[in-house]
């Protein structure tokens, strides 16, 4: 075997590093368990703080943000709220701030997701043409204690926008089908993803395919 030139040698090293990362990722417990295991100490810390402060109210779903391994989202401003997974940003077909996922554990230690829009680093929503910050008390979709696999939610935010979002259990692409429309989304930090659909019929059935431990997981919403 001849000696490789520097560019090919470096590329081989980068591939090996990518292989290391992929193997490490696969050896981790599924995202759900990882979040829960992080969430429990967080809950304990919150409870301890509540006791020591005497009158601190635990607000669900504010919970405690968990910093994603990689926020990604080059070109976007970082979010002031570390629970916002900037890398999950998806454009809205009508323009405006991108949609992003906020992932956190609630006071019960369960992982939860919210979807909103990111403008100037603030996680919020557009109402009546105005951007407003999303309060921590805004409702989120949370996993159940016994749930395994991905956490997926469908939200119809206006009559013209339907969002499919959540936390996949792996970084394999998530395929979202709504009738004859199909989107392929690559999950980012914590497995967060958002697919944005415009003008779906209110009764449109949605199918989400993701990968859990090497197998395809299918969830259907109607």
């Amino acid at each position, binding site marked *: 075997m001849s000696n490789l030139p520097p560019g*090919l040698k470096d590329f081989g090293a980068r591939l090996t590093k990518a292989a290391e990362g992929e*193997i490490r990722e696969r050896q981790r417990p599924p995202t759900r368990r990882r979040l829960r295991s992080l969430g429990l100490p967080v809950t304990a810390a919150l409870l301890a703080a509540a006791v020591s402060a005497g009158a601190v109210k635990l607000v669900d779903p504010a919970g405690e943000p968990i910093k994603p391994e990689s926020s990604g989202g080059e070109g976007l401003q970082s979010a002031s709220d570390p629970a916002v997974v900037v890398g999950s940003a998806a454009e809205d077909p009508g323009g405006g701030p991108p949609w992003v996922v906020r992932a956190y554990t609630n006071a019960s230690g369960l992982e939860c997701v919210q979807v909103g829009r990111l403008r100037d680093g603030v996680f919020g929503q557009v109402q009546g043409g105005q951007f407003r910050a999303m309060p921590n008390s805004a409702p989120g979709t949370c996993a159940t204690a016994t749930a395994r696999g991905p956490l997926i939610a469908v939200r119809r935010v206006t009559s013209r926008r339907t969002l499919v979002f959540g936390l996949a259990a792996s970084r394999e692409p998530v395929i979202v089908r709504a009738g004859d429309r199909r989107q392929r989304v690559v999950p980012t930090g914590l497995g967060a993803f958002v697919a944005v659909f415009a003008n779906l019929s209110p009764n449109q059935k949605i199918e989400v395919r993701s990968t859990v431990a090497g197998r395809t997981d299918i969830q259907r919403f109607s």
Partner: protein
Amino acid sequence: MLRVVGWPTRRSANDEPLLIKSFEDPAAFHHFYRAYVERVVVFFARRALDAETALDLVGETFALALERRRQFRGSTAHEEQGWLFAIARNELAHYWKRGAVERAALQRLGCDPPESTSEDLEWVERVADLPLLRTTVCAALDDLPGDQAYAVAARIVDERAYGELASELDVSEQVVRARVSRGLRALGQSLSDPQLKDLT
């Protein structure tokens, strides 16, 4: 007839596939890369006749191999090699069809393609014996039908864009691509290159 550079034998046909070891061991993927990268470089360089394009195609091919290695179902090094070159052939077909190298797998991995340093480009030219091949190809161009010869020379030798050629010839880009593709295929057959045959 082209000069045969000769393939260094790195792996016996019945060796255990490095790809399978690489499911759990990143070092095995490094060995896999080192075992085949030179052959893949030569495969692309002798078809694209361009060192830089060859390096880009090599990058996407190995990125796909890394990404899809768990789909490999073979049990020998011979099958592993066939699997890798099936990806390479597919990437080459995409390249001919689109006139551009895919980078989707590299992007998913967050990995840049191999850097085209002058040392790399010279190395590719040398291991693929491109100067001699280009000379031979130019001679063989004379035997092609005029429209194919012109399309191949304009696209491959002069590196002109498909769109520009389509405008000049007053045909669609698809027609230009087809002429280039058919011309290169005919060239490949007429050259009787043992290395090309070995890998296809």
